[in-house]
């Protein structure tokens, strides 16, 4: 039963973040960047329920981005599934429940994600320059993603406790 509930959580969270990230948030006027909510959801799910859920949610969100966005098939699937698995694995090994540590891990994840995008773009011959990319794309996106991540993580933690879903983490401390 627990597995079904977890699967339900994935099936609800991922499409919802996709719709928010790709279709709703870009329409808000004066928003400098769109937070990477899918990445935030994959990380949250991985942290909360371990590597299996992390992998499954990574694959689902990656496929969603690949198949609908018209980009390169397999491109996002690869990085999202790797990150989801890695986060799940970390959460199984790590005892920390501190928010700052979570944010630091989010930062590491986002750096990995953007490095991947960067290197891949380099491989197929599109040359970005590093500093402008950091300033105009990465920083605004990171700040907004932190907010989105905390929101998603909080909501998931709240509902997991209500529905008696076993999670790897207990109460969250601020520092």
């Amino acid at each position: 039963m627990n597995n079904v509930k977890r699967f339900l959580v994935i099936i609800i969270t991922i499409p919802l973040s996709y719709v928010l990230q790709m279709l709703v948030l870009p329409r808000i006027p004066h928003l400098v960047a769109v937070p990477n909510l899918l990445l935030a959801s994959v990380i949250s799910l991985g942290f909360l329920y371990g590597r299996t859920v992390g992998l499954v949610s990574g694959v689902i969100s990656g496929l969603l981005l690949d198949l609908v966005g018209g980009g390169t098939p397999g491109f996002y699937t690869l990085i999202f599934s790797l990150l989801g698995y890695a986060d799940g694995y970390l959460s199984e090994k790590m005892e920390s429940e501190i928010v700052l540590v979570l944010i630091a891990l989010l930062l590491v994840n986002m750096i990995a994600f953007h490095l991947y995008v960067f290197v891949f773009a380099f491989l197929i011959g599109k040359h970005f320059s590093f500093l402008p990319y950091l300033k105009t794309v990465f920083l605004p996106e990171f700040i907004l993603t932190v907010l989105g991540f905390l929101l998603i993580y909080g909501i998931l933690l709240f509902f997991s406790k209500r529905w008696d879903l076993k999670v790897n983490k207990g109460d969250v401390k601020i520092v």
Partner: protein
Amino acid sequence: MIVLDSIKEFFKKVIRHLNVKVALVVVVVLSLVALFLQYFHREDSISFVSVAGAVVIPFQEGVNEIGKFLFDRESERKSISEANAKIDELTKENQALKREIDELGEIRRENAEYRKLLKARERLSEYEVRSASVIGNDGVNIFRRFTVNLGSVDGIEKDMNVINADGGLVGLVSYVGLNYSIVTSIIESGVSISAMTKNGNANCILTGTPTSSEQSLLKLENALVGVDFTNDSTLVTSNISDKYLPNILVGYVTEVTPNADGLTQSGYVKTAVDFTSLKEVLIVCGKKEAAGE
């Protein structure tokens, strides 16, 4: 019943023996294979996206409508400070326009050439132009590649030109699905356009640069050093371009510097289209071969 039970038993076995690590390896290998396929056959490997597109696109359009309903209203209410900024901007534009009027006398002399251009314009208006909504881009905040809601069912073909409502060049249809198609913008790096000044005096090459795509700038190259871009800054697509129809507005030259070789000059061109917010585009239903000189 026995069959059902054995199937159930089989799945239980599979699930029991399913290792996360194995699953990870399978996923990674599959995506790597997909990536390599894409890398070596850029044109045809994208075709299996069609199936997913047919299912997801209608859903996406629905959500798009909801998004429009929620936020487009909100964006109509603009703050006073923004309105003031707009006034400033318009005053500046007004001054620029006055200057332009002064130049008009000179331009009148070139009337004959403009008449030729007009003929070309009319040729473009012979084509059917279809309006399409943008329903998704490739995940970045800038519209380098995006999906529109018309596909092969609606008569869209590959390499059709895409313009915006003001007639500025947006890009080319690069892939056509059943009920959607993907447009590659002119700011996508590596895309280059053969352009000329509005009166056809000079040809040059415009190339998309990834670094400056947020300001919608294109790189200008291969222009002869004698060409005066300050008085004649409007660039349109050239007659000799292989995919773009002639005389579509591309952008305005913002700066030029002579090259070290002393023969050519290069610089930057601001596109006529704002690539940070595309909602509706027009697809010109006619291709370069059909234009016929």
